[in-house]
């Protein structure tokens, strides 16, 4: 045990000394700790399988093609939901942001519908659409939509007055002001909204897949739960975590870096 602890300390220090690796390195000691705990027999193996076990199941599911299929289903649902949510949310947000009347009427309604939350819609959606793609799509679009709309509104409203004035006195017509000043000015908030929306949306997806799904990572996990397969549940969780890491790291962060950060706008 003492040796294991020393090893742990060493890895920790090594990880801290290599900041480039530091986003992956910390998982090494955790994996070690996990393996150690599982091997120690402190918990029954059915409830707490080790990493090797999860890896083995990963191999099996990959080989059978179940995991790639389910992953594809989930990712496509999320992508479609996000695209539709943005396509609806940004124009709606701009409208509510620039028009005082639309804002007065729309803002409370938006807040209320956002507060109901995606998952509470599931029962009535099931009555309307049954257990199918309609329900799932509605839930995800709904979830992504509101953070995007609300943050777009906020972004539009925080575009400095001077910038619109500058554009006006340079002869820009209304439409161009919208396109070249308001929307880019709101972009930091739009990106934040997209981030929040995806964060919520993808949790909603998992919930929807658990409750109504016939495929997808959420379904995989819940199906495994019915069969008492802890290993598959853990695998599902790891896949979900990694998936988000990649979406965030390969999509959202570069997007932010190329626009908001380059322009010197404060993000977050």
């Amino acid at each position: 045990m003492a040796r294991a602890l020393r090893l742990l300390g060493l890895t920790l220090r090594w990880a801290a000394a290599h900041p480039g690796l530091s986003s992956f390195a910390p998982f090494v000691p955790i994996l070690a700790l996990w393996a150690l705990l599982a091997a120690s027999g402190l918990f029954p193996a059915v409830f707490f399988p080790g990493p090797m076990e999860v890896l083995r199941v990963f191999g099996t599911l990959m080989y059978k093609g179940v995991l790639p299929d389910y992953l594809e289903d989930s990712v496509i649902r999320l992508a479609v939901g996000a695209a539709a949510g943005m396509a609806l949310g940004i124009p709606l947000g701009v409208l509510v942001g620039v028009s005082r009347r639309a804002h007065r009427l729309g803002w409370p309604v938006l807040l209320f519908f956002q507060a109901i939350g995606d998952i509470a819609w599931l029962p009535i959606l099931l009555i309307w659409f049954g257990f199918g793609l309609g329900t799932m799509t509605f839930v995800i679009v709904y979830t992504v939509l509101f953070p995007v709309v609300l943050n777009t509104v906020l972004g539009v409203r925080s575009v400095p007055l001077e910038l619109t004035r500058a554009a006006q006195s340079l002869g820009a017509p209304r439409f161009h002001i919208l396109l070249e000043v308001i929307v880019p000015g709101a972009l930091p908030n739009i990106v934040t909204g997209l981030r929040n929306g995806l964060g919520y949306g993808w949790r909603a997806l998992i919930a929807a897949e658990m409750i109504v799904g016939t495929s997808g990572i959420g379904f995989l996990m819940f199906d495994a739960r019915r069969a008492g397969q802890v290993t598959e549940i853990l695998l599902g969780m790891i896949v979900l975590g990694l998936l988000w890491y990649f979406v965030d790291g390969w999509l959202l962060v570069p997007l932010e870096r190329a626009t908001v950060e380059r322009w010197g706008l404060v993000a977050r």
Partner: protein
Amino acid sequence: MKNLIIRGLSKTYLDPYAGAHVTAIADVSLEVVQGEFVSIVGPSGCGKSTLLNMIAGFIPPSRGEILLDGRSVKGPGPDRGVVFQSFALFPWKTVLGNVTFGPKMRGVPREERERIGREYLGLVGLAGAAGRYPAELSGGMQQRVGVARALANSPDLLLMDEPFASVDAQTRMTLQEELTRIWQERRPTILFVTHDVEEAVFLANRVIVLSSAPGRVLAELPVPLPRPRVWAPLVEDRDFKALVARVLGMVRPA
């Protein structure tokens, strides 16, 4: 002749916090002739920005009228270029993108407007920075872009509201000298608002002094100093110092 004529202009705000009426500008009349460089000075809060914003068309006057070239001012338009204290550059456009914004709005084809843009960037000494973003420039450079952007639209009247107030002292002097040079080369009509008396006298052909709030015209003084104007000799100049002292006496009565 494209003259600016202002008659009996007043502005009263409704203060949303206190619910009270605040008169910022009271019965101001003045004229600016084409090619003139006019400074407006006054103590802080006397309504200089209010006056300029009304001329720019950003806010409506409460009373009185503003005529540019015989036509009443109804809103903002490309005939009046504005240079802002906060620069107000579009952060998501490159320097060239900012400067060519006005011509683009007029429908000038890309090649032509980029030629115009580069010409004006050259005029303000920023030919090398065309591809950079505003956030990558110093404050002084940003305001040079602001000036170039307004000029590139060839406005009848250039409105400047304390454009050099947020740059450091040395840069400010350089920018002031550059502005007088640009004015001499191009002869735009300029209305320049500031609370800095030395700046007002240094730049202009004529200085309009406003009273403390609510702002009224206290005096109009011609500035018969020779051009080109350069700080080094001028700070020691007796006429310059006398004029500054006179205006200062009106802005801050003892």
